[in-house]
C-alpha cells in the first residue's frame, strides 16, 4: 500500500485524479439517492405553492438573514413537538428553493408560526420587537413599513422557480405582479388570485395599512403562511418521537 503511494505521490495529475475520486464517493452515495427514492418526500396532492406576495416575503426573510437566528425545522423530539407543534415533514419544504431549515435558534423556531399571532402583533413586533417582548434581542425592522414592495419583476421570479421545478402555471406567472398587490389589498378585485391559489389564500392588509403594499405586507404574509402550505404534518404522526 505504501509502495503504491510512493509511486502515486510522484505524479501530480494521478494524485489530483485520485483525490477527486476518493472525495466524490461520500456525496454520490448520500445525495444522489435522495432524488430517486420516492419515500424521501411524502406525497401531498393538496400541497400549495407560495403566492407571489408570500414569495416576495420569503425573499425579504432571506435578504435580512432571518434564517441565521430562526430555524424552520421541528425535530422529532418530544420537547420540540410540545413547544412548536407537529414535527416537520420533507414535503412541507419541497417547494423551498433554497430550504430555510436553519442551524441556530437564537430566536424560536418558526416552522409553524403561521396563524399563531395576529398580523398586528407581527407588524408591531417587526417594527420594534421590544415594544411587544421587552427582553427580545431581535433587531428592529421598522424600515419594512416604509419600503414599498417592488412587484414589477415577480413574473421573472415565478418563471425561474418553474424552471427549478415548482408547478407555477402560465397564468400565475403572467399575473404575478397584480396578484402580489391584490393579496394585500382586500378592497381590490381578488377573484383571480383566489382562483389561481385556492380558497385558503389569506387576503388582508397585513401591515394594517390598506393604502400601500409594503415589504412589511409581504413579510407578514409569509410568516402567516409558515406551516400551512400542507396539512400533511397535522395527520396523526407515527410514534417514533425520541423521548429523552
Amino acid at each position, binding site marked *: 500500500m505504501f509502495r503504491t*503511494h510512493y509511486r502515486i505521490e510522484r505524479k501530480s495529475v494521478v494524485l489530483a485524479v485520485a483525490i477527486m475520486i476518493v472525495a466524490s*464517493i*461520500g456525496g454520490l452515495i448520500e445525495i444522489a439517492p435522495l432524488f430517486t427514492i420516492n419515500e424521501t418526500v411524502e406525497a401531498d396532492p393538496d400541497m400549495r405553492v407560495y403566492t407571489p406576495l408570500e414569495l416576495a416575503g420569503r425573499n425579504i426573510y432571506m435578504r435580512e438573514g432571518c434564517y441565521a437566528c430562526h430555524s424552520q425545522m421541528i425535530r422529532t423530539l418530544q420537547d420540540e413537538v410540545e413547544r412548536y407543534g407537529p414535527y416537520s415533514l420533507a414535503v412541507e419544504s419541497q417547494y*423551498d428553493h433554497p430550504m430555510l*431549515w436553519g442551524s*441556530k435558534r437564537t430566536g424560536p423556531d418558526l416552522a409553524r408560526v403561521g396563524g399563531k399571532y395576529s398580523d398586528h402583533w407581527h407588524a408591531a413586533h417587526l417594527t420594534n420587537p421590544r415594544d411587544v417582548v421587552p427582553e*427580545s434581542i431581535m433587531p*428592529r425592522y*421598522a424600515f419594512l413599513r416604509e419600503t414599498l414592495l417592488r412587484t414589477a*419583476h415577480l413574473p421573472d421570479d415565478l418563471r425561474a422557480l418553474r424552471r427549478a421545478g415548482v408547478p407555477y402555471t402560465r397564468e400565475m406567472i403572467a399575473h404575478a405582479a397584480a396578484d402580489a398587490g391584490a393579496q394585500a389589498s382586500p378592497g381590490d378585485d381578488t377573484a383571480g388570485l383566489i382562483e389561481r391559489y385556492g380558497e385558503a389564500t389569506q387576503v388582508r392588509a397585513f401591515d394594517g395599512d390598506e393604502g400601500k403594499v409594503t415589504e412589511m405586507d409581504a413579510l407578514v404574509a409569509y410568516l402567516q403562511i409558515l406551516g400551512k402550505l400542507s396539512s400533511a404534518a397535522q395527520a396523526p404522526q407515527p410514534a417514533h418521537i425520541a423521548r429523552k
Partner: protein
Amino acid sequence: MVSGLTVGERQRGAVILVVLAIIGLVMAAAGAERDDPIQTHGFVILLFSFGVLCLLLKDFDAPEPPADRLESYYDDPIKAGIVLSMTWAVFGMAIGDWVAWLLAFPDMTFDASWASFGRLRPVHTTGVIFGFGGNALIATSFHVMQRTSRARMPDQFSAWFVLIGYNLFCILAVSGYLIGITQSKEYAEPEWYADIWLVIVWVVYLLLYLRTLARRKEPHIYVANWYYLAFILVVAILHVVNNLAVPTSLAAAKSYSLFSGVQDAMTQWWYGHNAVAFFLTAGFLGMLYYYLPKRAERPIYSYRLSIVGFWGITFFYMWVGSHHLHYTALPDWVQTLGMTFSLMLLVPSWIAAGNALATLNGAWHRVRDDATLRFMMMAAVFYGLSTFEGSFMAIRPVNALSHYTDWTIAHVHAGVLGWDALVTFGAFYALVPWLWKRERMYSPALVEVHFWLAMAGVLIYVFAMWNSGIIQGLMWRTYNDSGTLTYSFLDSMIAMHPYYIARAIGGLLFLIGVLVGCYNIWMTIRHPAQRTAPAGDTPLPLPAAPLPANPQPAE
C-alpha cells in the same frame, strides 16, 4: 511590484482589467434599467478594476525585469497575500465582535437595514473564513508549492490574477450582504455571478499549482502539497454543485437554488461541512505540515501516518455533512451514515494532529522559548480537541441537546480561532522575516503578547459559549412535575445575556491580539533588511549546486 512583471504580463493584466471594467459597466447599466441591486455590484467591479488598473499603470513603462529574477522564487504576490489576509482578519473579526455586542445590546443598529445582525453576520463569516483564511491559504500555498518543489512558479501573472480575482470575489460577497444580495446558503451566500467569477479564479489557481508542481526538482510531492491540492480540487467540486441555481434574469442579482427542501438541505450541509473540511482543515493542515517542521527544524514524525491521515480525511469527511440534520426530515439512513462516518473521522483527524505534535519531540525547548512555534503547537492541540468535540457532537443523542444552541458556536470558534487562526499567525510570523529578508520579527515580545491575548480570547469565548449552549439545550427540554415544559423560550434567552457579554469580551481580546500582530508585521516590513539571506527559508538551488535540506518526512 509592477516593475517585476514582464511587459507582456503588464499588457495582459491591463487587457483583463479593461474587460472586467466593461463587464462592470454593463452590469451597472443593465441593473439600472431594472432598478436591481446588481447595478451597485456593477459599479463595485468597475471601481475595483479601475483602482487596480491605476496601480498597474503607475509603473507600466518600467523596463523589462532583469533575467536573473528567474534564479529566485517569485514572492511578491505572497507578500501582498499576507497583508490582505491580516487586513481581512481585522475587518472580519471587528464585525464579528460588533455583532457579538449586538446580541447583548440589540438597539445599536441605528435603525439602518445594513446594520442589523442578520446582514452583518455573513459579513463576519465571509470576512474571516474567505477573506482572512482564504488569503492566508493562497499566500502560504504559493510559498509552500515553490519551496517544496524547489521551483519558481511558471509565470508571474497567474498568481496575481488568482490573488486579486479572489479578493474581488470577497468584496462582492461582503458588499452584497450589506445591500441585501444573498443566496441565504450558509457559507455560500454570494449570488450566481460572483460564484461564476470564483470558478474562473479557481481554475487558474489549480492550473498554477499543477504547473508549478510539474516544474519541481524533487521527485516526490511533499505532503503539504497533497493537502493544498485537496483543498483546491474539492472546494471546486463543492462550490459548483452547491451553487447550482436559476437566475431570475441576467440583469438581476437574484437567483433560485436548483434544489429544494430535503435535497437542498443535504447538498448545503454536504457543502457546509466540507467547507470546514477542505477549506478550514485540509488547507491549514498543508500549512501546518510545512511551517511546523520548518520552524522546529525537525522532519515530520511519520511518513506513513501522513499518508493514512491524508486519505482518511479526504474520504471520511465527505460523508459527515448529514450530522447537521439529525432528527430532521432527512431520511434516517443518511443521518445514520453521517453519524457513523463522523465517529470514524476522529481516527485520521487525530493521526494528523498527533503526527504534528510528535514532530515536536526533541524540540519542546523551542516551543517553550519561541512563541511562533507555540502558536503552531497550540493550533495542533486545538485541532485535536475540536475534531474530538465534532465527532462527539455528531452522535445523535448528543446532537439532540447541542444542535440549534450556542454549543455549535463554541465548537466552530474553537476550530476557527484555536486552530485556523493560530496556525496562520504561526506561519506568518515564520514567513514574514523570510520573505522581507529580516533576521527576525520586529519584536519577539509582541509575538508573545499576541500569543497570550489569543489564548485568553479563545478560551473566554469558548467557555462562555459552552456554558450558554448547554444551559439553552437543557432549559429547552426541562419538564416540571406536572409533565409540561418548565421554561418558555424567552426564559432561555434571558439566561444567555451574561454569556453573550463574556463572549464579546473574549472576541475583543482576540481582536486586540490581531492588531498587535499587524503592528509587529508592519514594523518588520518597515525596518531595513539586516541580512540578505535570512535563516530558515529554503533557497532556490542554482543549477549546479547540491540540494540543501528541505522538510521531508522521516523514514
